[in-house]
């Protein structure tokens, strides 16, 4: 019987609760905060920061910071980022106090306007200085808001990407897709807020919920590793009979997901499945199987699962990933790897993590500015390996083949992820020839573009090993294979009958996990 035992849930570890703050900057930011309050975000302190006093007064956030008392005197910035920047600088002390002891700070802002574009980078900087990790949710303006705003937004976004640990960028234009054409414009704006609120909430619970297969900060950062990129985010929840399917469908429907099409290009995808005590392994399997159809075989899946009594009957799935934009300035990886290294320790002592993170932070920013090309970054990683051929390759034309080969490159890495005993046994059966051949190709190819984040994967991979239940993961995967190969019996070669996401050719008792013997 594969059903997860009901009393399996790990005891909640209170000391793991990380102090979290959510700062909304500008009008869009406070709108997003309001939405989070409506949605019942209870785990973080909400701070609204705005130049416009009126808007600030109407915000429901617990604490409020008025930006630019002297500069704007309670009015807005009139769309001038410089004014926003000055205002935020002026309120520096207040902001610093507001950030306080938080270890994780979410910034929500709408870029394009004065306060958002101008103040957000300053606030992000301040937040970093307090030693917290900063995840920025930025909304890009609608195309119809004009090129000037778009340019301001773009500039601010670049700035934020240098400063924040991760930037999740929402494009308002995409939000339009989920809103009916006839709906009012406020609904389109609200759609962005809802999505941001969902993301913040799910990321918070993602990090804070003690999981059977835990997802930590490191995994999150790995998934968001490509900066200057398009972030894929999806969250779905369902309590129907067919909840794995429904939740996944809903998650893929998220405008940032592009119905899962983009997922196939992602290098790594973070998936967390959360459910009440009644969640079964087979449900998780069904969900992952279905998700796998959207993901290429070489994608690294950072999988986590959580049993949370409060979920009751519901099952939720959170998918986070990012795609590198072509020719992206990749500054994050350099920072990320070191930040990942201390992660195993936070479980024991959170403080250790804080100190390395910020100082490394400054490094990548500089590097990214000065040299996005191939040469400089090899050294931080593994100098001996990368330097020799670095200059011979010219990155741009190589990008495509590289990505393809890198995709295959992930294969051995994935094997690394599973515990070594596991790898051995699997290797015996099938994968022996591959690893032998692969590394050579891999090494040649790696050199030209070492700043690509994926190179760092092997290191990162060590952290999941520390997770409480790595075996669970691999067991689940093997089970899937078995199911796939035996269960359709007579209908093996016929067109599958898929209704409501279930393959009806598979015997009902197997799908429902009813024991018949």
């Amino acid at each position, binding site marked *: 019987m594969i059903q997860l035992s009901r009393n399996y849930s790990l005891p909640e570890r209170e000391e793991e609760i990380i102090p979290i703050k959510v700062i909304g900057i500008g009008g869009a930011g406070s709108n997003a905060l309001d939405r989070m309050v409506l949605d019942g975000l209870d785990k973080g302190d909400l701070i609204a920061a705005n130049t416009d006093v009126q808007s600030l007064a109407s915000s429901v956030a617990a604490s409020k910071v008025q930006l630019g008392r002297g500069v704007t005197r309670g009015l807005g910035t009139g769309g001038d980022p410089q004014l926003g920047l000055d205002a935020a600088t002026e309120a520096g002390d207040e902001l610093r106090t507001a950030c306080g002891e938080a270890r994780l700070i979410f910034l929500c802002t709408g870029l394009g306007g004065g306060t958002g574009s101008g103040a957000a980078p300053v606030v992000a900087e301040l937040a970093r200085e307090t030693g917290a990790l900063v995840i920025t949710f930025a909304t890009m303006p609608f195309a119809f808001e004009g090129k000037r705003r778009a340019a301001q937004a773009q500039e601010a976004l670049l700035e934020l990407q240098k400063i924040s640990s991760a930037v999740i960028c929402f494009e308002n234009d995409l939000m339009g897709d989920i809103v009916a054409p006839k709906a009012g414009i406020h609904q389109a704006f609200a759609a962005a807020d809802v999505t941001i609120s969902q993301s913040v909430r799910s990321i918070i619970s993602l990090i804070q919920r003690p999981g059977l297969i835990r997802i930590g900060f490191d995994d999150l950062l790995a998934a968001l590793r490509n900066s200057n990129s398009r972030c894929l985010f999806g969250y779905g929840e369902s309590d129907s009979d067919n909840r794995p399917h429904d939740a996944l469908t809903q998650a893929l429907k998220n405008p940032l997901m592009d119905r899962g099409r983009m997922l196939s290009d992602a290098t790594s995808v973070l998936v967390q499945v959360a459910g009440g005590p009644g969640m079964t392994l087979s449900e998780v399997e069904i969900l992952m199987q279905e998700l796998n159809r959207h993901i290429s075989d070489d994608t690294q899946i950072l999988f986590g699962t959580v049993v949370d009594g409060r979920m009751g009957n519901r099952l939720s799935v959170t998918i986070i990933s990012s795609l590198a934009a072509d020719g992206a300035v990749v500054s994050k990886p350099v920072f990320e790897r070191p930040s990942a290294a201390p992660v195993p320790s936070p479980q024991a002592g959170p403080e250790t993590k804080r100190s390395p993170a910020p100082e490394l932070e400054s490094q990548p920013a500089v590097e990214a500015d000065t040299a996005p090309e191939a040469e400089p970054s090899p050294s931080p990683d593994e100098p001996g390996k990368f330097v020799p051929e670095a200059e011979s390759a010219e990155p741009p034309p190589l990008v495509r083949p590289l990505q393809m080969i890198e995709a295959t490159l992930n294969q051995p890495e994935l094997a690394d992820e599973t515990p070594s005993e596991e790898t051995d046994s699997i290797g015996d059966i099938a994968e022996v020839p591959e690893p032998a051949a692969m590394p050579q190709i891999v090494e040649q190819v790696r050199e030209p573009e070492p700043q690509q984040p994926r190179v760092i994967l092997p290191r990162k991979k060590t952290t999941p090993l520390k997770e409480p239940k790595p075996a669970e993961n691999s067991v689940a995967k093997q089970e899937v294979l078995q199911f796939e190969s035996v269960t359709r*019996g007579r209908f093996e070669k*016929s*067109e599958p009958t898929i209704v409501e996401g279930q393959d009806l050719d598979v015997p009902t*008792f197997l799908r429902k996990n009813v024991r018949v013997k």
Partner: protein
Amino acid sequence: MASSDLMVGLEIGTSKICVVVGEGRPDGTIKILGVGQAPSRGVRKGEIVDFETAMKCVHEAVVDAETKSDVMIRSVYVGVAGAHIQSFNNRGSVSLPEDRDEIDEQDIEDVKTNAREVSIPSQNAFLHSIIQHYHVDGQDGVLNPVGMLGERLEADFHIIHGVRTRIQNTIRCVKELPLDVEDVVFTALAAAQVVLTPHQKSLGALVIDIGGGTTDYILYVDGAVKQSGVLGVGGDHITNDISMGLRIPMTRAEKLKVEEGAVTLGNCLPGETVQLKDDSGFAGKEIERETLNTIIHLRLRETFELLKRKLEEEPFINYIGEGIFITGGCSHLKGIDHLAEEVFELPARVAHAQTMSGLTSAFENPQFSAAIGLIKYAQAVQVDRRPTGGIRRIFGKIFSGMR
């Protein structure tokens, strides 16, 4: 006997191919002259997957029917099923020209054409468009508007469509024999013609035809078809489940299902077993009856639940006054009606063709409902050319591009 009165229904099922030869009587009844059948091969889930083999089987069945009924079969009505068949309701409307206010036959045709002007997937073809009700100038529930005065004629149609090539495959399979295809009929629609009386149709009834490869359903409310469709699950799936759950070969599983299978749970003594004899008569495996029934029960319950959810997408299931009629090969399973009652919360019964004369004993078998229904349908279509008052609501077929 005029040849036009001879009607042949051919159902290419997943487990058997069935040919029913019938003769229309002047009083509107039908006499069954003979039934030919052959085990079906090359058909999965109601669709032909092996053309050559399926053709041979059809030929066998036709020859069998010819021998038994002592007639020469030239043309047939063919039943089609398959999960590709879908349906929806649509309303068409036409305005009468200024200078005329009496509705005539042409307007009826026009309104039907109008109702069909909806987008179905490009690879699909219309199979049926069945009139539900007419509305004349907002007056609801008009059964036959010809001759009525009005300015605006509207009509609700139930439109059934399916993938063109798959339907054509079935047609071609028959034409190569060679036999003429008079018409192609959705099997559930055919089955409903003989399972339900007009009275039951007007009270509201659901017909579920659980065959070998598919479960076809059709829902009548107020005497009109409101919902219909196909679920690609049938008796084969039960057999497959048994075969895999008990680890026995398919043929054995099929036999076990037919001979011992039941749907009800908790009806067996604890530890009650079924002896599985192998071909040579030696006692083989012992199988716990409850296990067998559990497998069948789970599959059928799921099928009914899926069906229920599908039906609940529209409100019509709430208007069923008469109940559920289960037919098709799988309705032989003991207790299936109770399960349906439990799932749908409606009275359910196993039903077979009612309104036939002739070799009744042979045909009071739910397996033949659809094939016999084809004949009834054929008769209805022929009679319908001169409508006999609202009973039969099938006004010919939309067949464009298929023949």
